[in-house]
């Protein structure tokens, strides 16, 4: 962003200045798409933070019994599908690896690896989401049963919605990959989409650890 004092820093005064809009000038070190994803992730952290606040309030402040609480319908503690969720966790973590592989491949100009990485990431994400739907159908309680059930579905469902959005992004990226878009020099869309997918993965690790294990 260094501009000579004598020069016109915005490109005004050129002969073709009237033919084109002046070039956008912004910080050379933080591109607007990156700022956008930062703001987005910041708002997402606040959203998840509010759900976690409710969860911990219900678990720590409003709960005087062991956790998970007793299911009034069965008289036994709520059973969380830890094993299915563990399989799902492995699937989602693997999808981060394939996403990283895809990004590294396009950076090196290896299009086949890029395409394979995108397809695998999408399929793994889809498997995760279907696994979560399967888990919801068989979990044995519903959102309106107790506050535990509400916070459980709230946190995992909120994350599931993010996976769904991520899948839509991955689908667009995968289609573009097969249409020949992106190159070692121009792959910003992959970077930003990849950042979002890794963010979804990190949030799941936090949700899984908090809701299923601890």
């Amino acid at each position, binding site marked *: 962003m*260094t*501009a000579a*004092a004598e020069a016109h*820093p915005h490109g005004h005064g050129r002969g073709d200045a009237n033919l084109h809009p002046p070039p956008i000038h912004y910080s050379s070190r933080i591109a607007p798409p990156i700022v956008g994803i930062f703001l987005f992730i910041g708002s997402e952290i606040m959203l998840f933070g509010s759900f976690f606040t409710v969860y911990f309030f219900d678990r720590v402040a409003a709960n005087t019994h062991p956790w998970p609480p007793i299911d009034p319908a069965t008289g036994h503690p709520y059973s969380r599908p830890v094993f299915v969720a563990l399989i799902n966790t492995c699937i989602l973590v693997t999808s981060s*690896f394939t996403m990283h592989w895809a990004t590294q491949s396009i950076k090196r100009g290896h299009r086949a690896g890029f395409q394979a990485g995108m397809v695998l990431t999408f399929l793994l994400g889809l498997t995760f989401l279907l696994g979560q739907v399967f888990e919801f159908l068989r979990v044995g309680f519903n959102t309106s049963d107790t506050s535990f059930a509400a916070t459980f579905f709230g946190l995992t469902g909120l994350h599931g919605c993010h996976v769904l959005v991520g899948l839509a992004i991955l689908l667009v990226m995968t289609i573009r990959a097969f249409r020949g878009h992106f190159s070692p020099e121009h792959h910003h869309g992959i970077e930003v989409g990849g950042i979002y997918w*890794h963010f979804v993965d990190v949030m799941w690790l936090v949700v899984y650890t908090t809701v299923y*294990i*601890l």
Partner: protein
Amino acid sequence: MPRNPFRTEAEAFRFVLLTIVYGALIVIGNKIDPWVGLGVFVVETAVVAWWIFTRGRRERPVPQAPPPHPAGERRILVVANETVAGTELIDEVCRRCRSGEKVLVVSPALNSPLKHWTSDLDEALEDAKARLEASLAAMRAAGIDARGEVGDSDPLQAIEDALRTFAPDEVIISTHPPGRSNWLERGVVERARERFALPVTHVVVDLEAAGAPT
């Protein structure tokens, strides 16, 4: 200043891996005893916070090519903010310019963090240019062969940019006195000495005492 871990896809992926390790250690501690898990969480969080905040302070030296200017010619890089027209700075440069040294004055386009992140640089560029012109006029009046540039809002980045185009033999950084200088608070002079393999001179300009125009 701590660095955002989601700057690139590769860094976000690394963050995923670190989150796995972070969460796994907490879970293992929790399996031993909930208090051990809490202790692991506190220790890990403290270590991560310490690492994030200290890593940003470490400066890696910037590799430099030999200066491309003719042997015998001496070049001085001056980096200054509002103090750019201070008499102490002009005097310091005058002392060094007895045999036709070339001087490049870089005036960083100082900006608020909010405006920096939203790429609103117009006002910062105009202000920096006005300061620079005042400084150049003062130096030329003192018989110094100086030219100037508006630089990056980060003074260290501005120096690094100038190193590549001007290849100075020495750097002079001008700041407000301690207690009033944001640059000193951020350790700009110390970090410049760590990062650049060049003599770095620090000049303090007290504009309030001197009554110099800003």
